[in-house]
Each structure stands twice: as C-alpha cells, then as structure tokens.
C-alpha cells in the first residue's frame, strides 16, 4: 500500500478513479434527484387537478345554491355566489385544461365538463331572467329544475370519472416517486460512504505522507545542519553562491573574515562581499565565481590577493573556487578562502630575509674588499667560495674566475700550491689557525706574503670553510730586515755601553780602592808620627797634626760615600717586607754615643711594614736622621719627629722633621744634588752626597722624596714608597 501510495503515477490513477466514482455517484444522485422532483411534481399536479375539479363542482353548487336563494327570496344578495361562480368557472376550467394538457383523454373530458358547466350556468341564468320578467312560473321552474338536475348529475359523474382517472394517475406517479426516493437515498448514502472512505484513505495517506515528509525534512534539516556545522567548522572561509553568483551561504569564518553577516550577505552578488584586489596594483581581478560560472572549472586565486573587509581592512587571502554541478548544469559555486596574513607575512619576511642576506653578502663583500689584504674562502674540496677585491687584484682575475677554482687554476706555481693546500687541509682537520709565509721571487722585486688561514665553523662546529688572508708584507719585511740590522747595531752599541759601564765600575772600584790606601797611609803614619813626637811638639804643630788627621778622616768618608752612591746604580733591589720601626730604632741606637751630651727629644709614631730593600732603606733613614741630628745641634731643645700620613689617594708618606736650622726654599733645587751643600763645612761638616743618595734610593724604589724648610725654623723631609704592605 505504502509503495503504491508513494508512487506518484499510481496515486494519480487512484485519484482519477476516486474522482470518477464520486462524479458518477453525484451525477446519478442529481439525476435521481431531478427524477424524484419531477415525479413529485406530477403527484402534486394530480392533486391540483383533483382540487380544481372539486373547486369547479363547488362553484357550480354555489351558483346553484345562490340562484335558488334569490329565486326563493328575491333577495339580490343571494346572487353574489352566483356571480363569483360565473367569474371563477372559466378560470378554473382553463386551469384544469392546462393541468391536463398532457393527457388527451382528460382534455376531452375537460371540454365536456366546460360545456356541461356552461349549460348549467345557462339554465340558472334563464331561471333568473324569467324570474326577473316575472315569467317564472311553476312549470318553467320545474322544467328548469329537472333539466338542471340532469346536467348537474352529468357533471357529477364526469368529475367523478375525471377524479377516478387522476387518482389512478396519482397512484402510478406516487409509486414511481417512492421508488425514485429510495433509489436516491441508496445512491446518496452509497456515494457518501464512498466519498467518506476515500476521504479517510486520503487523510490517512496524507498523514502518512506528512509524517514521511516531516521525517524526510528532519533528515534533510539534520544533514543541512551537519553540512552547516561542517562548513562552519572548516577553518577556511566558505561562501556558496547560486548559478547567478548570488550568495546562498557563508560560514562563520567567512563572516568573520569579510565582516559581513550571513543575513546581510544572503542574495548579494558575491563580489560585493568577497571584495578582492591585487596586493600591489589594488585593482580588482576577475571575480573567481564569475570565472567558474563561465567555464565550470575549479580555479585557484592568483597570488598576492587582498580581501577588503566590510570595514575596509585588508587581509591577505588565498582562495579557490569550484563549481557545484548537478547533472550537467552548474547550479552554483563554492568559494573557499583563508587568511594567509601570517603566511604572507612570513613570505614577506622570507623575502625580506633573503634580501637582507644578499644585502649582507654585498655588505660583507664590500667590507672585505675594503681591506688591502687578499681574502679567500675555500671549501673542503679546496675550491674557492669567495675572493675579495684585493684577492682579485692580487691575481689579476675576476670574481667569476675564482668561482669553484683551485689555486692551480688561479696560476700559483705547483710547489707553492702543495704547501698552501697542505696548510689549508691541516686547518680543515684541526680547526686551528695556521700561518704560512710565501716569498715570490718571480719578479725583479722580491715580494713577501703572509698567509693566515682560519677555520670557519658551521653551527655543528665542523670546519665548513677555510678563510685565508694573504697580506703583502714586503714593506714590513723590509722594515723588519732593517730593524734587525739596526738591532744588531744596537746590540753592538749596547755591548760597547756595557763595556764602558764595566770600565767605569772598574774605574770607580780601582779609584776607591787605590785612594783609600794612600789616605789610610797618610792618616796612619801621621798618627804614628804623632804618637812618637807629640809631646815634644809645639801647640801650633800639634794643631797641624790634628788638621792632617781630620782631613784624612773626611777624605775617607767622602770616598766611602761616593762608593756607596755609585754602588746604588749597579746593585739590584732586594725587596722584602721591612719593619720600619726596627730600622729606625737601630739607627737611633747607632747615634746613641754621639748624642750622649745632647738634649734631644724624639717623637716617633708607630710605623708600618714596608716592602723595600732593607740596607738601602736604612741608608735613607740613616741619612735623614743624621741630618736632623746634625742640623739641630745648635738647638737648646731639639725635637725630631718621625712618622707617616695616609693620604686620600692611598699613598703612605713618611717624614722626618726637625726644628733645626732649616733651609731657604730658594735653594731647594740644590738640596738633593750631588756635592751640593747649603752650609759651610765650618758650620756643619758633610760631603754633600747624603741627600743625593737618599733621592737615588727612593727613586730606585719607584717612590719620590721632597722637603720643606724654613731658615732657622726647621726642615721636613718626606718620602713615599709605592709598594708597601
């Protein structure tokens, strides 16, 4: 059943059949109904005939009765029915004639009835006339009565027969009507039933169809939904159009990218929503949808396309468009596109990087070409990868000449190539730089080159290239040769100087040694002589002896000081940590006997440990202290202060101050000079070497010494040693 119903053709046949049945039934019913009406009409017709017959009879009776009354009473009022009867009779008889027009036998009878009726009326009318003329007598009355009675009886009989005929006809007609009525009911009910049944079937069928359609719609909606969800879930933007290029659908991504809502976009031309331009020219390319609609082939978008969004933003997109084909017709297109801003940006970045790399390469080449050194880069096959301008010039080649060439091909002599290649290979092996000197004697002028080969590592620390810089060191070499010649000369000179120095030392040594002896002899023998003859001498002569003795002592001291001073220049420093306190104490101890009768106040603060040569430092302090003692000798209350100050710059300055005779600052420049004295020998004895020695020792330590003084107020000597601990 279901399969039949579902089949459209069968359904149509069924419908035609059902409609035919209903039409047939309806037709039959209508026909039946007409028949029935007609039949009914005939029944009613018969009734009318019967009624008219009765009426005719009654009219005649009324006319008879009225006339009689008049005749009896002469009251004209009784004639009213008679007149009414005369006026109605014709009409009535005509009506019967009309009603029975279809029945010839009845027509004959009506004619008879009409003539009889007229006869009767005539008789009545005769009687009235006679009565009015007063000619109405008994005999006439009787005659008229009898004749009237006969006609009346004939009329009665005729009407009875006519009634009999009509009744018979009625019976027939009524029977027929009843049959028709039954048939009508039967056919009507049957038609109704069939219609009802058909209706039920149709309703059931429709219901089923509705259900099925609903189900189908649900399925369709579900799959539409699924499609929609699928399309919406696609990361790419999707727009589909109809065959005219009007938008039928767009997914969420498409909405977001174009900034158009589906509702707004629906029914618009795709190019309004998918507004694209060329990235560079900003011109609209041919719309892909149109193209696809035109030729029915799948197309991809040209590169560098920008999508202009609804708000005017520009987005790099990549798209493709495909036709939707149903049968042989293109029913629309599917446009798929995606935001490739990131990809595009990375492409742009890639392009930029590539440009940057070439720029860097050029930059590097220019930089490397700015040096006068020839620079070559070789790969593992010892083929050139790069050569700078100086490299090209050096071999009188072009950059292309170096491309993938080797030293042999560049034109280096074979024996040189071997050496250089072995060096380069070594750098590849060890990853360590190497140097090679190359002498070119092929020209008039000998040229010297220095090859420095360095490894170039890849990011896995493998030596990928070796970069060799070749420097023309001819000038340097010549200078070096000159320098070495000069050095030899210098060494010779130095040797001479050293020899002179040694001779000088030897001279000083000899002098000191040789001078000491005579002085000692003079002093010695004078002393012996003095002892032997002293008592016999006059006072004056005794004084001379003393003068000689004193002179020899001074001379001896002078020689000793001079020797010490000269020895300073020759002996190396022996630096150790020295406690200054101990040195100062030792010096003062040495002066103890000398100071026996002096009134002298020492103010000595605690001194630090210094890093110095102890004997030399002792000479320094000994000189300074002995000076202080010497130059305060005239003072009643002599004070000598020894101490140190820590300066802000971290320097420690030591000082020896006294309140002796001091000195005039205007002679300061002579203070530390050799043999320079600011006092006469008579005032203060001395050799004039002490402070010179002090200065030499301090300077030898890398320090400095200076002094402040004021005549008759005292002197202060300061020194610092750069290294102390």
């Amino acid at each position, binding site marked *: 059943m279901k399969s039949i119903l579902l089949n459209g053709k069968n359904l149509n046949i069924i419908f035609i059949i059902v409609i035919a049945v209903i039409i047939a039934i309806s037709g039959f019913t209508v026909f039946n109904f007409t028949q029935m009406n007609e039949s009914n009409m005939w029944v009613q017709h018969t009734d009318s005939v019967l009624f008219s017959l009765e009426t005719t009879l009654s009219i005649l009776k009324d006319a008879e009765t009225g006339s009689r009354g008049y005749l009896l009473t002469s009251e004209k009022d009784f004639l009213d029915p008679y007149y009414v009867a005369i006026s109605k009779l014709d009409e009535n008889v005509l009506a019967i004639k009309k009603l029975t027009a279809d029945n010839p036998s009845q027509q004959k009878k009506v004619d008879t009835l009409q003539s009889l009726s007229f006869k009767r009326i005539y008789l009545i009318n005769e009687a009235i006339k006679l009565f009015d003329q007063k000619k109405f007598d008994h005999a006439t009355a009787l005659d008229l009565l009898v004749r009237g009675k006969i006609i009346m009886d004939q009329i009665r009989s005729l009407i009875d027969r006519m009634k009999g005929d009509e009744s018979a006809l009625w019976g027939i007609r009524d029977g027929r009507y009843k049959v028709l009525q039954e048939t009508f009911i039967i056919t009507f009910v049957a038609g109704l039933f069939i219609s009802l049944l058909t209706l039920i079937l149709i309703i059931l069928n429709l219901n089923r169809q509705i259900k099925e359609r609903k189900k189908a719609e649900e399925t369709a909606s579900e799959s539409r939904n699924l499609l929609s969800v699928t399309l919406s879930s696609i990361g790419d933007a999707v727009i589909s159009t109809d065959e005219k290029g009007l938008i039928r659908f767009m997914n969420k991504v498409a909405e977001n990218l174009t900034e158009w809502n589906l509702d707004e976009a629906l029914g618009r031309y795709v190019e309004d929503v998918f507004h694209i331009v060329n990235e560079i020219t900003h011109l609209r390319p041919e719309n892909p949808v149109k193209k696809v609609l035109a030729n029915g082939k799948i197309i991809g978008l040209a590169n560098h396309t920008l999508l202009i969004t609804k708000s005017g933003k520009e987005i790099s997109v990549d798209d493709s468009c495909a036709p939707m084909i149903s049968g042989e017709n293109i029913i629309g297109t599917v446009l798929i596109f995606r935001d490739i801003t990131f990809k595009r940006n990375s492409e742009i970045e890639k392009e930029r990087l590539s440009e940057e790399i070439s720029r860097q390469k050029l930059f590097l080449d220019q930089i490397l070409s700015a040096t006068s050194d020839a620079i070559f880069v070789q790969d593992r096959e010892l083929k050139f990868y790069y050569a700078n301008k100086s490299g090209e010039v050096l071999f009188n080649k072009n950059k292309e000449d170096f491309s993938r060439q080797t030293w042999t091909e560049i034109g280096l002599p074979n024996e040189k190539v071997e050496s250089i290649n072995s060096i380069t290979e070594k750098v590849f092996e060890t990853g360590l730089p190497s140097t090679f000197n190359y002498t070119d004697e092929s020209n008039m002028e000998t040229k010297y080159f220095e090859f420095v080969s360095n490894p170039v590592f890849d990011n896995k620390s493998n030596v990928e290239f070796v970069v060799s810089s070749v420097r023309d060191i001819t000038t340097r070499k010549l200078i070096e040769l000159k320098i070495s010649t000069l050095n030899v000369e210098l060494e010779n000179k130095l040797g001479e100087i050293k020899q002179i120095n040694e001779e000088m030392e030897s001279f000083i040594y000899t002098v000191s040694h040789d001078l000491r002896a005579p002085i000692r002899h003079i002093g010695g*023998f004078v002393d012996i002589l003095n002892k032997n003859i002293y008592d016999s001498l006059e006072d004056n002569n005794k004084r001379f002896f003393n003068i000689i003795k004193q002179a*020899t002592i001074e001379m001896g001291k002078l020689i000793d000081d001079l020797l010490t001073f000269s020895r300073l220049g020759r002996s190396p420093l022996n630096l150790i940590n020295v406690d200054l306190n101990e040195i100062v104490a030792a010096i003062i101890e040495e002066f103890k006997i000398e100071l026996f009768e002096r009134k002298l106040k020492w103010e000595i603060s605690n001194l630090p440990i210094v890093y110095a040569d102890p004997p030399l430092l002792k000479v320094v302090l000994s000189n300074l202290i002995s000076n202080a003692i010497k130059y305060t000798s005239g003072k009643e209350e002599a004070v000598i202060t020894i101490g140190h100050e820590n300066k802000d710059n971290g320097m420690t300055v030591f000082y020896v101050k006294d309140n002796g005779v001091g000195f005039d600052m205007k002679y300061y420049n002579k203070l530390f000079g050799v043999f320079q004295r600011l006092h006469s020998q008579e005032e203060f004895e001395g050799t004039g070497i002490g402070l010179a020695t002090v200065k030499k020792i301090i300077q030898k330590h890398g320090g400095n010494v200076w002094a402040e003084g004021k005549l008759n107020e005292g002197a202060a000597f300061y020194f610092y040693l750069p290294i102390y601990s």
Partner: protein
Amino acid sequence: MSSFKKILLAEDNAKDAELTRYALSESNLMNEIVHVKDGAEALDYLFHQGIYSDSKDDIPIAAFIDLKMPKVDGIEVLRAIKTNDKLKFLPVVILTSSKEERDMVESYRLGANAYVVKPVDFEKFVFTVKQLGIFWGLINEAPAFLINK
C-alpha cells in the same frame, strides 16, 4: 816561643804591611808575622816551593790576605788554599780595601773564614787589626795537626 805559630800576611802594599805589622805589634802578639808581597809568593810559602822550598813543616796559624795583589790575586790564593786537602783547614781572613759586594760574596763562596774591610781611619784600622790578631792568634783554636807540625 816556637810554640807560637806564624801568621801569614799577604800584602803587596809595603805601607799597608807596615801599618798592619804596627797594629799587630800594638796588640802585643807573640806570633811571628810572615809577610809576602804578592799572591805568587804567598803560594810559594804555603806550598813550600820556590824560595820557601826548605821550610817543609812551616804552616801558619792564620792567613791575612789582601785581595788586590800583583801576579796572583787574593781570590786565587784563597781558592788554592781551600781546594787543598791539607790547607783547607787554614783560617783565611780577607783583609782588603774593597767594600764591593761581589768580592765579599766570592770570598765567602770560596771558603774565607772572615772578610774585613780596612778602615780608612787609622785609629779604627789599628783597632780592627788588633782585634784580628788577638782573635786568630790567641783565641781561635786550630786543629792539632796545624799547630804541632
């Protein structure tokens, strides 16, 4: 008196030698002073050769040697003494005018027993030589084989 051993004085300068003798005499030493005028003579004396070939057993109790001497200098004499098995026990005092460090170091390195710089001041000179004489002539004890032979 023969028990007092001799003191060898090697000094090229006659004046110095006389002053030294004078100073030693001041200390009243009983020891005989043998004065040789240079290193060569000193070696002759010590090794009983040349003019001293007769004095077979004559070994001094101490030797005062000047450094700077003609022919053979003091350092050479010192070396000869200190490298000789028998003589190396002889106390050697270097008596010199040199205050040079290198002389001093060299002398000690070769085995000198003392190094004395002659003071220029005669008083100090006399005092110093007297001390030397007393110390080496009287106080210091020498090994028996040096004294008894």
